[in-house]
């Protein structure tokens, strides 16, 4: 539910920020909107939100085979005040959150977001302020999460069995996954070190194989790391979910998408989201860091991650 207000004090519930476990402010909410949109692959979707002293984590899961994660580090926020003994974790309707932010965030300018948790009834309280200083207040109900999201991880630095990985332009990956809709249900992803190639293959009423050849001439690949051949099968609908909802602004940025597969076949798809920052925030970051340039770079990006569990290899019916 929401109550648009013309400004003034929404903190009528009294007290200051100390009542809340988290009060944080974002200069420009567009980056958060883009990130949350990317992990929303169903019309009605619930997310589990975890707040910590390091930042905000939003996780969505489907049938424990597919998980989408957005992690917003506290450095991305203009202000981040965290006072809690135990990390608050709650469930919230991702659909409602995204719709709310989308409706009141103007894409043309910058809309600032102030987020507070919890409200009197454990709500998530949002206040969006756009450039013309018009405020919108929103409260979104939360619930107690009924599950703990599995903590998938792939250790990139595993010395024994380093995962294979490659990074390509996000739009190329998205196009490839869209093309693979034709063969359908199960898609094989295979990496080969020599010649360096990534192959996507689907078989159905028709067969399709897409080869990404690693060639330093073309700028298709941003990175390619593969020391041994690896191939695993994944359900098409999960693969599709990892790229289907990437907002156009991210595709245009083309920072790249990285795919990592570990030795058990767990696939991690990672997209880089640019976070817009106002000049003042950039300055602030530069001032407050030892190595201004590095912090500046890392402050401006966030990640959207998907974990996909491998599928059984399909039985050859031919």
């Amino acid at each position: 539910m929401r109550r648009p207000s013309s400004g003034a004090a929404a903190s009528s519930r009294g007290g200051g920020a100390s009542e809340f476990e988290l009060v944080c402010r974002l200069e420009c909410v567009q980056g958060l909107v883009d990130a949350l949109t990317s992990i929303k692959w169903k019309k009605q979707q619930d997310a589990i939100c975890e707040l910590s002293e390091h930042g905000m984590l939003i996780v969505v899961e489907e049938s424990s085979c597919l998980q989408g994660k957005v992690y917003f580090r506290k450095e991305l926020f203009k202000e981040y005040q965290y006072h809690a003994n135990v990390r608050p974790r709650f469930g919230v309707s991702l659909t409602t959150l995204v719709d709310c932010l989308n409706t009141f965030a103007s894409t043309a300018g910058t809309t600032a977001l102030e987020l507070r948790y919890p409200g009197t009834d454990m709500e998530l309280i949002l206040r969006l302020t756009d450039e013309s200083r018009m405020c919108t207040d929103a409260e979104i109900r939360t619930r107690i999460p009924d599950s703990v999201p599995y903590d998938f991880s792939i250790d990139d630095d595993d010395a024994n069995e380093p995962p294979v990985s490659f990074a390509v332009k996000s739009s190329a990956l998205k196009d490839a996954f869209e093309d693979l809709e034709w063969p359908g249900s199960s898609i094989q992803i295979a990496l080969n070190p020599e010649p360096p190639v990534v192959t996507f293959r689907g078989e159905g009423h028709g067969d399709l194989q897409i080869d990404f050849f690693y060639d330093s001439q073309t700028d298709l690949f941003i990175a390619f790391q593969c020391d041994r051949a690896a191939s695993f099968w994944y359900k098409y609908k999960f693969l599709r979910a990892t790229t289907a909802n990437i907002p156009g602004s991210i595709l245009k940025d083309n920072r790249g998408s990285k795919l990592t597969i570990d030795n058990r076949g767990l696939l991690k798809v990672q997209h880089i989201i640019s976070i817009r920052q106002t000049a003042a925030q950039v300055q602030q970051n530069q001032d407050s860091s030892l190595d201004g340039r590095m912090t500046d770079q890392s402050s401006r990006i966030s990640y959207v991650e998907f974990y996909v569990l491998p599928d059984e290899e399909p039985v050859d019916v031919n």
Partner: protein
Amino acid sequence: MECILSGTQVKSFCRAVNCLARVGAELLLEALPDKLILRTLNSSRSAFLEISYKTQFFDSFQTSSPVAQCSVLLKSVCTVFRTPPSNVDRLSISMPVDAAKVQWTIDCLDGIRKTYWISCSNDCEILQAAVDRGTFPSHLVVKPRDLSRLLANFQASLQEITIIATEPAATPYTEASAGTEAKAVEMRSFVDRTKEATDGALHTQLWIDPAEELQEYFHQGEAVDVTFSVKELKAMVAFCEGAEADMHMFFDRAGGPVLFAPRFGLDDSEHSDFDAALVLATMMDSQLRPPEAEQPGATPGPGNHDPGTSATPNQQRRPPEDAPTSVNRSDRTNTWSELSGSGARTGAGPSRGPDSQGAQRSAQGSEEIPIREPPRAAAPEANQNSDDRSAGPSNREPEAQASGRTNWQQTFATSDASKDPAKTQAADAHRDPLVPQERPSRPHFYMDDDGEDERMSEEEEDEFVVPATPPEERGAY
């Protein structure tokens, strides 16, 4: 068969596939030593499209056996061409003999290779349209863009269109028309009267001057009309426009097939490495109402036309439509062609039952578009109420008025009041094409009320020949 295409050839091939996909569901591939032929037939077997590419079109073309054939689903082939041709560096097609799948490989400019294996069936019926362009007596050539512009005047949901071609002799019917040219070709929307939904349908008629709108036009003898589906025509127009070629249309008469083909400029030799032909079946019914032999003043034209058409037992006579020929461009007058309906309600060719038209076989042996007839009484009221009858075509005039007409300089200046005298004049005018007739003017394009249409269709269904509503019974318009 193995072949490789690149560059603009991919675009051309993509265009061909899109056009084929708009006509039929299955693509029949035939590889001969000297060319590759793509064919499709639509589900009602009333449209057949064949596009062939000679070996020089391809970067490389090899066949291992004299003839290789297979059929694949067009939907799958369209999936192959989802990649924009501008991104494609090379396309290779591999059709091994007796293989279960045809392989299409696309090498994209950014280093991606997509390989599609599409299931094919080898036991497909071999189709060939037994239609030779040389056998058609009449033809016209039009620029696709011009034809698109003309078709834009018609309702977008139009299913079938009638083209009426007359001999483009400039016959001066009056002194005032000296120097004017006849509009020899008419395009008319075909509305199926049996369908309930036609009450509110937009009827459109265009008269076009071949000298202005067409690059070439040849037709001799009596007027003929052909009615065929618009959907495939539009697909072919798009294809010709993409190929930067004019469109050639060959036709004979109602019931016979019409053929469309791209016509390249004489100096455009680079395009001679592919060819296309769209053959459409036409409706057996002629939209032109043949005049009665007993009608006084019936001119020899209709008289000649009549025996030919009425001899066919299943021809159906329709109430007179507007003058299909030689509309005078004079400001004052408009001349009904000899084929227009005067009171020439026909007694011949009584309507048969709706089933009689069934599936007529065209010259090709493929099925015609099934023709649905409105229920009509068998008894024609040929010579009764000749005023009403002759007012019939005038009754159609509002319909004609409701249509867009290109290049028609007939002014709408005459008031409505002139309609009634015009109607009674119509009786004479229809009989004697030499008498100029005032075409009643209408200030608006559209029928003023739907009731008029309803009345007309009701009347049609009741009687074989629809008498026009007498002027005194008409609504004010």
